C-alpha cells in the first residue's frame, strides 16, 4: 500500500437505495403531517435559534427523509421550543409537537 498524498473520496451523492428511513417512518406513524412539508422554509426563516445554531425544522425533516439521523439530532438540541415555526407553517404542521416527538424517539433509540 502506498500513500500518494491524495485519496479516493466517497461519493457525496445521496443514495436512496440504502438510505435508512426507519426513523422517518416511525415519526410518520405518530406525526403523519410531517410528510406535508413543502420545504418553503418559513419555519427556518423565523426560528430565533436558527441564525446562531444552524437549527432548521425544514432541514430536520429533509434529513430524516434522506436517512441522515445524526445531523437531525444535533440541530434539534438547539431548539428552544418557542413555537414560532408552528405559527408560520402554511401546511399547518404542528412543528413544535413534531420536534418533541422526534426527540422522544431519539431517547427511545
Amino acid at each position, binding site marked *: *500500500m502506498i500513500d500518494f498524498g491524495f485519496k479516493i473520496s466517497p461519493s457525496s451523492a445521496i443514495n436512496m437505495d440504502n438510505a435508512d428511513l426507519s426513523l422517518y417512518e416511525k415519526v410518520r406513524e405518530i406525526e403523519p403531517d410531517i410528510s406535508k412539508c413543502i420545504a418553503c422554509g418559513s419555519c427556518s426563516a423565523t426560528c430565533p435559534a436558527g441564525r446562531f445554531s444552524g437549527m432548521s425544522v425544514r432541514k430536520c425533516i429533509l434529513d430524516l427523509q434522506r436517512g441522515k439521523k445524526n445531523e437531525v439530532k444535533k440541530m434539534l438540541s438547539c431548539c428552544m421550543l418557542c413555537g414560532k415555526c408552528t405559527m408560520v407553517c402554511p401546511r399547518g404542521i404542528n412543528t413544535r409537537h413534531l420536534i418533541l416527538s422526534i426527540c422522544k424517539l431519539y431517547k427511545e433509540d
Partner: protein
Amino acid sequence: MIYQGKQKIWADYQKEIPDDRWYYVRSCIRQNFFPGAEKMFMEICRNVLKKDFYESASHTTCGGIAYHCDTIPQETVMTIVARQFALMTEAGYENYVASCITSFGNYIEILETWNEFPELEAKIREMLWKACRREFNKPKYVAHASDLIYKYRNLIAERAKYRLINKNTGEPLKVVEHIGCHYSKMFPSKGVGGAEYPYVLCGMVEAWGGNVIDYPERRHCCGYGFRQYHIKANRGYSISNTHKKFESMEPYHPDMIITNCPGCPYFMDRWQYAIAEMEGKTYGENGYGIPVFTYEEVAGLVLGYDPWDLGLQLHQVAVEPLLDKMGIEYDPKRKYEGLNHKDLLKPELPGVLRCC
C-alpha cells in the same frame, strides 16, 4: 436494453466522412502515453488501406490543453488553429483529421464560433497574417481519427487476423467503450451516434466480433479533466471518478476497454494501479486489471500486428491475459526489447496489481 432503440438514435446521428485525402494532425500527449497508436493509424490508413493521408512536421499543438486549463485567451487558441488550417491549405487538402479528442472538440468549437461571429474569424485571419504571413481555407470536413477507423471498420474486419472473440469459449469478448468528453458532448451532431449513445467505438467493436457492455456509469468522465489532475491537491477527485466507473463496470466482468481520447486510456490504465495500491482492489481476473486500449491499438491487434510493435508494453495493466484470450501470438521475451533489440530493462512490478 432495447438494441433497436439505440439503432434509431444512431441513425439520427450519422455524419458525412469522406473516404480519402485527409490532412492528419497528431496529439501533444498521445505519443508519450501510447506511442504505437498514432503510428498504427497511419500504417492502417496509408499502407493497409492505401489512402492518401498527409502530415506535416510543421504543425503544433492546437492549444486545447492550455485553453481548457484557462491559461491562454481564446483568440490565441484560434490563431494557433488558424495556422494549422493554413498548413492544410498549403498542402492542398480540404479534409482535416485530428488524433486528439480535445483538438477535435477545439476545432469544431472554433469553426462553430466563427460561423456565429464572422467578425471574429476576420480578426483571427488578420492576426495570423500579422504573426506569420499565412492564409487559410476552412476545412470542408473535420473528423476525429476514430471516425475514420469507424468508417474503415468493415475493411479492417475483412483483413482481420484475429477477432474480439474468446478463443477458448468462442464467446464474443465483453468490451467497455469509453468516449472522450470533447468528442460529442459539446456538439452532439458532430459525433457518430450522438452524445448519449455514441456509436463510433461500438461500431468497431461490433464489426470486429466483440460485445459492447453498457453499464450505469458509461457516460461518466474517465477522471482526467485537465485541471482536476494537473493540480496535485485535486488528484483525489480525479481518481474518485475513475474508481466510480470501475465499480460500476465491475459486475459485467469486462475483458477489455476501448477508448478514443488521449487522456481516458491513460487514466483508466494508470489509476487501476493506484486504486490497487490504495484499496487493495483489482478489477480483472486473477488479480490483473482490465486492459485499456486505444482504438488504433485494437485495430492493430485485430490486423495481426505484433503487440510489442504496438507499444503495448507501455501499458500499466498487463495486456497478456487479453492476448491469450484472443489467441494472439507474442514473444514474452521481446516485451522489453527496444527497436534496436537492446534490453530496455524490466520495470519494477507493483505490489498489488498483478502484471507480467
